[in-house]
């Protein structure tokens, strides 16, 4: 039965092929031309690629403004983030809370704390050193002043130390005065302490 069905299918396929071989008839050339022309005429416009669409959008004034605004904002943000920030402002933000009085008292305080302000440590000693040489130095002194305020025992300046020694000597406490002088000499080994004492005493 399968053989008979197979033979029948083969015969049917042969019949189809027989008709295909002898089939004729073509659409007229004018009909072909008409249909192809209609297809070309009514073909939808080519869809632009993503890149082309982006370029077209950039050419519109609306989008030009938008892109320019975004670019400007991005540039400003970049500049702000890359601008140098003063170390002291970051290290001691509380200095902004300083009142004028506090700043004055801080300026009088001796530059004894070496850590936060290297400019202070390198500045010349004495009364002249207390005046800030520049706004930067003034800013650098702020954290030192704040810290000296909170320090339990602030060390006296060279001038104050020398005055204290003179006062002790005048009071007859020469031993205490010598100890002070020794301590000052340790702190300021390069200073000619006897000469400065003498000058101060004469003044």
């Amino acid at each position, binding site marked *: 039965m399968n053989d008979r069905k197979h033979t029948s299918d083969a015969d*049917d396929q042969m019949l189809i092929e027989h008709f295909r071989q002898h089939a*004729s*008839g073509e659409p007229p050339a004018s*009909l072909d031309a*008409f*249909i*192809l022309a209609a297809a070309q005429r009514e073909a*939808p416009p080519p869809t632009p690629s993503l890149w082309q669409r982006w370029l077209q959008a950039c050419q519109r004034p609306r989008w030009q403004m938008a892109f320019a605004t975004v670019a400007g904002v991005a540039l400003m943000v970049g500049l702000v983030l890359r601008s140098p920030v003063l170390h002291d402002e970051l290290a001691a933000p509380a200095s902004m809370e300083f009142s004028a009085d506090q700043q004055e008292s801080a300026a009088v305080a001796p530059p004894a704390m070496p850590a936060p302000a290297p400019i202070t440590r390198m500045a010349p000693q004495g009364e002249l050193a207390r005046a800030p040489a520049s706004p930067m130095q003034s800013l650098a002194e702020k954290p030192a002043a704040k810290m000296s305020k909170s320090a339990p025992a602030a060390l006296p300046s060279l001038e104050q130390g020398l005055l204290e020694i003179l006062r002790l000597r005048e009071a007859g406490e020469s031993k205490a005065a010598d100890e002070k002088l020794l301590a000052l000499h340790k702190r300021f080994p390069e200073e000619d302490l006897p000469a400065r004492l003498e000058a101060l005493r004469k003044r």
Partner: protein
Amino acid sequence: MPAALDSPSDEALLARYRNGDGASFEALYARHRQGLYRFLVSLSNKAELAEEIFQDTWLSLIRSTTQPQGRASFRTWLFQIARNRLIDHWRKHSVHNPLHDSYDEQLHVQPDDTSSPEQQLSLSRDQARLDAALQALPEDQREVFLLRLHGDLELPQIAALTGAPLETVKSRLRYAQQKLHRLLAEEVPA
């Protein structure tokens, strides 16, 4: 005819044309113009009507934005558009639609005594006789045979296109082929 493996499918060509590639339509048209035209000429048996329906079918496809739906192939879709256009024409001109005739194959079936290979080789090659044999078929059998012949459609596709059950399509094709064998058989000289 199935497309070559390295060539794009009909559906891909149609999609490209919908995206603005005019050359894809030319390739699609070249593939199907002959089969569709011959199908319409044989089914309507009028060259002028076939040309009109042929043109309407392609213009409809050009102006449509839809694609073949579901599992239907482009070829099935194209032949279905053409068939519907032809039926619309018959309705519009109050012509009796022969495709809607119910035909009892059992009443017209005749014994097929031409199934031997020797007799297959003796089928008539006369074009007029081939055409006459086709026109002698009942309309629904002729339609199924022409869809198989010129559309190269499988039986399930023909069933989906005509809306007829698959078994009915199978029997129509079988009876059509038997009748064609009978009508085209020639006596083989001894």
